[in-house]
């Protein structure tokens, strides 16, 4: 039995299933930010499947690793993971945005399983830096992962936090940049060019690697390699991604930052997912 399992791909947090959950949720709640969630799906798959430790599957466990979703706009992807973990039930997916419901359109720390209130950008990373500093002071081996958007890197506190993380040698902190090349109003290169992000984070004192953010094996290898460097520097993974990844008509189409699904586009998106059908 175990031999058979070992030879099968790990189906937990399968990207296509998570994207389907996001679509179902977005359709149910008639909400936006679908493309923002799709670009971080594989990052979350790899983190939840292989790296994040939640003793007793308890999202509040004192000994847990911390996943800080600083780009709160991608929160539906994290809800999809929380559904897989049993931290949410499907009625919360179907009931997304119903009056009186708990799951908001941006990351909210009062939802058990989410660590920060973000969406106002440039907040979560600093909180993550503080968590990492606190864990380090306590001599704990827990890790802190902070997912930031490339558009979010416009915010000043990100770079304040980067200076502080390097200065205090926060080798338990990994920032993951979802470099999908877009922000709300257009391509990042047109709005506020970011230049060479690897060079920027390296010059701030981070161990830095780049990876294809949709290649699970590459993301996993990069995370392992960064932790394995053994230096006292904080880590940065620059993940090149595609905004809207997984549904061809949404890919690199910034309209899907804002557009809501109607019954037709929902059906088309689901069938597109079924056709591309990657890991299944």
């Amino acid at each position, binding site marked *: 039995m175990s031999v058979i399992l070992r030879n099968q791909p790990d189906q937990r947090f399968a990207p296509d299933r998570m994207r389907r959950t996001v679509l179902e949720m977005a359709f149910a709640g008639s909400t936006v930010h679908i493309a923002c969630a799709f670009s971080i799906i594989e990052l979350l798959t790899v983190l939840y499947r292989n790296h994040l430790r939640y003793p007793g599957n308890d999202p509040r466990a004192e000994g847990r690793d911390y996943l800080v979703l600083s780009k709160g706009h991608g929160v539906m992807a994290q809800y999809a993971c929380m559904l897989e973990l049993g931290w949410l039930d499907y009625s919360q997916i179907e009931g997304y945005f119903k009056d009186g419901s708990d799951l908001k359109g941006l990351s909210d720390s009062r939802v058990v399983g989410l660590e920060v209130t973000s969406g*106002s950008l440039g907040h979560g990373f600093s909180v993550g*830096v503080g968590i*990492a*500093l*606190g864990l380090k002071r306590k001599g704990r081996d827990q890790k802190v992962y902070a997912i930031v958007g490339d558009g979010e890197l416009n915010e000043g*506190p990100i770079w304040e*936090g980067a200076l502080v993380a390097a200065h205090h040698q926060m080798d338990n902190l990994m920032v993951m940049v979802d470099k999908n090349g877009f922000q709300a109003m257009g391509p990042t290169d047109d709005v506020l060019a970011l230049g060479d992000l690897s060079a920027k984070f390296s010059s701030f004192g981070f161990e830095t690697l780049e990876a294809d953010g949709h290649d699970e094996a590459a993301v996993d290898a990069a995370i392992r390699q960064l932790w394995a460097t053994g230096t006292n520097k904080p880590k940065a993974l620059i993940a090149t991604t595609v905004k809207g990844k997984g549904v061809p008509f949404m890919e690199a189409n910034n309209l899907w930052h804002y557009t809501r699904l109607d019954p037709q586009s929902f059906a088309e998106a689901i069938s597109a997912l079924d056709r591309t059908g990657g890991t299944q």
Partner: protein
Amino acid sequence: MREAFSNALLRLALADPQIILLTGDHGYALFDEFRKRCPEQYINAGIAEQNMVGMAAGLARVGYRPFVYGLAAFIPIRTVEQIKLDIAHDDLPVVLLGDGAGFVYSHLGTSHQSTEDIACTRAIPGIEVLSPADRFEMTAAMNYAYAAHGPVYLRMGKSDRGDVHLGPTGSLKPGRLLKVRAGCADRPGLIATGSMVRAAVDVGQSLDLQVWSAPVLKPLHADDVCAAARASNGLVTLEEHSVFGGLGAAVTEITSENQPTRVLRIGVPDRFSEHCGTYEYLLREHGLDTDNLRDRIVAFFKLVSSNSKVDGSN
């Protein structure tokens, strides 16, 4: 008063190793003793206040008790959103220390002056706002802030105006006023906070008025304010802060609903400082010097007295 502050901070930090003092590269001499005795509990977070407040939230999340120090122009004003989202929204035990509030930095101009900090913090849900007037209130305020186990903004204004209390005040209570001076009940009563309590006592002595200090601005409970209103003929509020959103607003919010009373709000009018000069000069520029206060209070007394005669009450 500053010595009372640094002594209290040191005493608390020695007793609780979870206390971490974060400063945005300010407070050089103020923290000498702290740095010597609690070096592991001191972090200079650099001139990066927004990150510092977010970081304090992260430290609080894993069990620390951060005290975040900066000039009031920066903590809280520059970081209001971090205070709201990262700290207050989760009711985290972070004490925000805003030094030099009001016109302390009279020569440096508007960037270092702060007359909107009470209004900004008071409107954030769940934060308590403290504004001690002398060294005794400062000691009590630091104890209160530590014991609160939630978000607190402690405002430190002009600190060398002398004592207003004869000795230790005892524990501060949420929402309670401290009676500082007895006086004539048929005259206006003065409720002041921070640096203006000293001025209120001086004016109160010359006109024989009752004076209360409000070291806890939020929560401010109705009982004491209504009692002060009942015990006086009109109320005057005094603060080195905008007339909008501070002590005057808090008092009138209470009186208008519970104890309709004429209230004269004395504070900083809706203007920035025009010129540079000594602290006393700037108080004059904004109409907050003792002569001006006295004239306005006398005029207000005439107004409430004539009103009383007209409507036959009192």
